[in-house]
Each structure stands twice: as structure tokens, then as C-alpha cells.
């Protein structure tokens, strides 16, 4: 261990490289995790819940009268769902394509009939720029900002919801705008609206529900829930939210993950270069000593192991220092998060909180140790291959 600090300048340089790399990695991973957490929370708590239950096979086909394939006796089914593990709440939903009419303006939309009172307790990430949920209003409507602007309506205005096409009778109902939301996803904000479940079912002349949105104790609870649902409710199919929102959420997550992985590898490479430089100098300085050790019967492997252990110790120490400073940064200057501008396709910026986790710290520490060891292997390999007599003459 004394060898780790044999040359203080080199050791401090190597430690600084590792510590800075560890700090950067930890904060970056925390930023990544905070971004994903925020994005996931927005997606779960604004639209989908943690996932939804459908009649098995329903999503694979298109139907002229889709409500005939929906869930019957929804109250009884919801009771059974509430018995499943990790379930916090269940929300019945009905999909309803319709035309919205206000005065002489019409806009086609894709709406949902929802239980306003129940959903208001969980779906709290829908960003209302005017008004709010209709809750127990019997004929309220909330709509995306795009629709509201297209119709020229505001909170308190009346809008007609008109359904029916082809051989389906036209039905209409008048509802009152209680809220205008902006999720940040333009495509959604310009087509989405919500009306009370009973109003939607009335328009479609059905008492069935299309889907049951599920609120769980957390995102990690989905696999356990899905497994239990397969057994208890084999007639239903459980679909997680990232599958329902594949185009935006899943693809965005995959894209961000790939980007973060690339940046992470760049950081690691810079750390590796710093270590390689510091360790190379240290090993070269010890060429004559290595020659002496080999002359006295130490094998190349034994000498390499000694240097690997020293490098691992350096990586561990530098990694710990980096973790401490990373944590101090995250809990200090960065504790309020980082304000980010709107992402492509979005209209709302985010404030990302640096979310540090134990597993991230462990990963960073492991990477520091592994990188340190990797950084010493080449110089040690080269130096132990120098002929002993030549090594002994090294100044």
C-alpha cells in the first residue's frame, strides 16, 4: 500500500483523475436517472397509469363496433383487480373518437371517458394551464391546449361532443369546459380530451369499459402485478405504460439511454487516459526495481499482481473521493435540480433533480477500480517483458 503513494505527485494526479471522473460519472448518472424518473412520472401520472388491462386480443384488431369487445361488468372486475398485489387504485376508461363543435368551429379529437373523481387523486401530472379536472361535474370536459385554441374556447364555455360515423347514428351531448391542459406533446395536446365516463358510455350506448388503468405502489411493481393478473384474470391482458406509449416514451428512453451510454463511455475513456498516464510514469520509474525483483525470483505474474493490487487500491480510493464530492455536489449546489429546456416535440421544459442511488455509486466505484486496473495492465506488461539485465540498468 505504501507503493500507492511512493511518488506523491504521480499518485495525486492519478487520484485526481479518478476522483474527477467518478464525480462526473455519478452526477451524470444521477442526472440520467432524474431525467428518466421525471419522464416516467409524467407519463404514468398524466396519461396511462402504470399500465392498463384490456380484453385479451382486443388490441390486436380493429372493429366496427369496438365496445362490443370491451370489459363487461367492470365493477366486479375492478373489485378482483384491487385484490391483486401492489394495486393502489383502478380507473375505468372508455375511448371515444368524436368531433368537438363550438360555434362554427369543429375539431376532430380522440377522447377518453374517465371517472373524474377517482382519477383526480392519482393523475396529478396533467399540466392545467387553465381551470382543472371536472372531478364530479356531470358534464364537464377537459381538453388539450391545441383543441381549445382551435375551437376558441376557454373554461366555462360549452362544447358539443358529436359521435357516430358510417352506419352508426349521430349522437351529441353538450359539455362545459372545466380545464385546458398542456402535456408538452403537441400531437396529444391537439387531439386529446376527457369527459365523464357516464357521458362517454351514454354516447356509445354501452355500459362496458374499454380499459382499466392501474395505479401501483411503484413502477417496479408492474412485473409482480402482471404475473398475478395473468393467473387471476386470464381473460384480460396487462399492458405496461411503456408499451402503450412506445412511440414517445419507449423510443425516447431508448434514445436517451444510448446517448447517455456514449457519454458515459467518453468519461470513462478520459479517466482511463489519465490513469494510464500516471501509472505508466510510475511503472517506468520502477523498471530497475522490477528487474531486481525478477532477478531475485519473482515471476512476471507475481509482479503484475502487485501492480494490479496497487492500481485497484488507487481506483478504490479515487472512486470513494469522487463519490463523496459527487454526493456533496448533488446535495449542495445542485440540490434544486437543473432546469432543462423543452425536448424535441415538447413544449414544456423540465427541472431535473439529480437522483443518486446506491447501485449507481456501486457501479461508479467498480468502474473506477476496473479502469485503474485496465490502465496499469499495458505499462506493467511492457515493463515486465524488458530483459532483466536491461531493466537493471534502467536509470
Amino acid at each position: 500500500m505504501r507503493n500507492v503513494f511512493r511518488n506523491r505527485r504521480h499518485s495525486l494526479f492519478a487520484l485526481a483523475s479518478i476522483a474527477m471522473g467518478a464525480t462526473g460519472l455519478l452526477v451524470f448518472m444521477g442526472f440520467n436517472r432524474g431525467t428518466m424518473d421525471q419522464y416516467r412520472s409524467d407519463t404514468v401520472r398524466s396519461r396511462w397509469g402504470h399500465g392498463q388491462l384490456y380484453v385479451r386480443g382486443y388490441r390486436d384488431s380493429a372493429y366496427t363496433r369496438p365496445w362490443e369487445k370491451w370489459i363487461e361488468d367492470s365493477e366486479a372486475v375492478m373489485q378482483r383487480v384491487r385484490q391483486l398485489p401492489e394495486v393502489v387504485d383502478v380507473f375505468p376508461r372508455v375511448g371515444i373518437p368524436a368531433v368537438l363543435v363550438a360555434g362554427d368551429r369543429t375539431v376532430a379529437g380522440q377522447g377518453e371517458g374517465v371517472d373524474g373523481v377517482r382519477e383526480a387523486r392519482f393523475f396529478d401530472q396533467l399540466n392545467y394551464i387553465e381551470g382543472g379536472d371536472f372531478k364530479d361535474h356531470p358534464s364537464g370536459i377537459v381538453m388539450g391546449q391545441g383543441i381549445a385554441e382551435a375551437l376558441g374556447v376557454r373554461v366555462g364555455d360549452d362544447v358539443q361532443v358529436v359521435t357516430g360515423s358510417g352506419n352508426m347514428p349521430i349522437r351529441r351531448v353538450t359539455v362545459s369546459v372545466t380545464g385546458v391542459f398542456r402535456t408538452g406533446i403537441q400531437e396529444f395536446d391537439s387531439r386529446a380530451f376527457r369527459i365523464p365516463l357516464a357521458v362517454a358510455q351514454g354516447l356509445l350506448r354501452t355500459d362496458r369499459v374499454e380499459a382499466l388503468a392501474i395505479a401501483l405502489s411503484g413502477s417496479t411493481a408492474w412485473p409482480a402485478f402482471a404475473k398475478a393478473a395473468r393467473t387471476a384474470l386470464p381473460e384480460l391482458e396487462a399492458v405496461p405504460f411503456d408499451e402503450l406509449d412506445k412511440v414517445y416514451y419507449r423510443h425516447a428512453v431508448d434514445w436517451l439511454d444510448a446517448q447517455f451510454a456514449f457519454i458515459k463511455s467518453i468519461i470513462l475513456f478520459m479517466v482511463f487516459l489519465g490513469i494510464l498516464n500516471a501509472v505508466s510514469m510510475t511503472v517506468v520509474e520502477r523498471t530497475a526495481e522490477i528487474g531486481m525483483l525478477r532477478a531475485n525470483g519473482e515471476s512476471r505474474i507475481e509482479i503484475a499482481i502487485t501492480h494490479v493490487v496497487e492500481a485497484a487500491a488507487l481506483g478504490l480510493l479515487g472512486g470513494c473521493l469522487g463519490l463523496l464530492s459527487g454526493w456533496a455536489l448533488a446535495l449542495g449546489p445542485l440540490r434544486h435540480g437543473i432546469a432543462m429546456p423543452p425536448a424535441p416535440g415538447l413544449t414544456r421544459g423540465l427541472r431535473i433533480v439529480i437522483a443518486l442511488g446506491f447501485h449507481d455509486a456501486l457501479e461508479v466505484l467498480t468502474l473506477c477500480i476496473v479502469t485503474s486496473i485496465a490502465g496499469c495492465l499495458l505499462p506493467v506488461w511492457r515493463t515486465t517483458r524488458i530483459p532483466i539485465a536491461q531493466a537493471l540498468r534502467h536509470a
Partner: protein
Amino acid sequence: MGANGVRAVTLYEVQGVSHRYALGRHSVDALRGVDLEVAAGEFLAIAGPSGSGKTTLLNILGMLERPSEGTVRLDGANVSTLSELQRTRLRRERIGFVFQAFHLIPVLTAFENVEYFLLKRNLRAEEARRRVLAVLEAVGIVGAAGQRPNEMSGGQRQRVAIARAMVRDPDVVLADEPTAALDGATGLAVVSLMKRLNRERGVTFVFATHDPRILAAADRVVQIEDGRVMR
């Protein structure tokens, strides 16, 4: 024949050894057809001017280099063709080295520098400690056992190096210019020490040197010039 008239056992038998090495685009013949025998317990000096090949010959005896031609036998066994691993093992078990530049590990104390090479011998800690202290006592440096090399004089460092070479009870100690970095009195003391160890423990000492004090103390001096042993 030994000093008491008893036929001495041959430790080393060098036959027709030549050694060539590359220097840029040229090759240099460091040794040319060297024949030499070293008896067990001998205090032998290999003398010659700089560049004569004495260090190369010492390196070949110590299996630090392979001869380009010829054979080297240690206790009758041909060691010229052994693998790297076999040579490493043989050096660990039978040969000690003393260098002009001492080559002590700077972050270890004198005690630890000597103890280092016992660590892999599966000795109990107390036994290892006893042996280290005994050899430090033998070389007259036990009082500085807790000091690091940068806290010692040149003479003290060389004594530690000798202790390091002796602690594993080698058959032979190969010393390359061990007194070159020492002043007159210190060098003389080191030579006397090695002579005493040779007498008391029967360890063979082979020196590459042009120090007249070693030459005067040697049982035999082998002159080498331009890679050839002079008769």
C-alpha cells in the same frame, strides 16, 4: 583442489559460452567461447576493463540472460535451455544477487526489504522474523532495521542488499561491482563482510569487479578481456 587438499565440488561449469546482442543494426559479441569452472564455496573475482564482458558472464551465471552458444551447468544440470519459469524458480531457491546500485525498495524498511523475499516461503511469521533479524545481525545492520533506504548511508544500504541476498540461504551470491558506489573504508568493510560470510557459511561468491580490494581477497581471479577469458 580446495585449500585443504580435498577435491572441490564444481558448482558451475561453463563450456564454450558465447553471447551476442543487437545494438541497433549491429551485433556485439559480449562473450566469445568462454570456458570456466566455479567451485562450491569459492570466493571468485571476474576482473577486466569496462566492456570486457564480466557483467554479461555474471548475468549468464545468474540465468538473467541466455548464452547465444555453449552450455552452463549448475550442479551438473544444464540450465541454458530451461524455461523462463524454471529459471525464475532456480534463482529464487539458489542464487542471491548484490548490485552496484543496491536496488532496495524505497518504501520498505531494511527489515522489510529483507523479509520481502521470505514472504512466499510459507514460513511462520515468527520464523521469518527470526531469520531476517539473524541475517541483519550477521551483516551488522540490525540497529537500522527500521530505517528506510533514504535514511541510510551507501554502506548500510549495501549491507541490507547483502542480507537480502543471504536470507534465503543461497548456494551462490553473484555480485556485480558491489563496492563501486562506496567510498574506500566502506567498500573495504563490505568486502570483509562478504569474505566472512563466505568462510562462515560456505556460500560461493562470484564478483564482477575491478576493485583491487576484492581482487586481493579473492581465492581466484579470472581475467576477462574483449569477451575472452585470459589464461
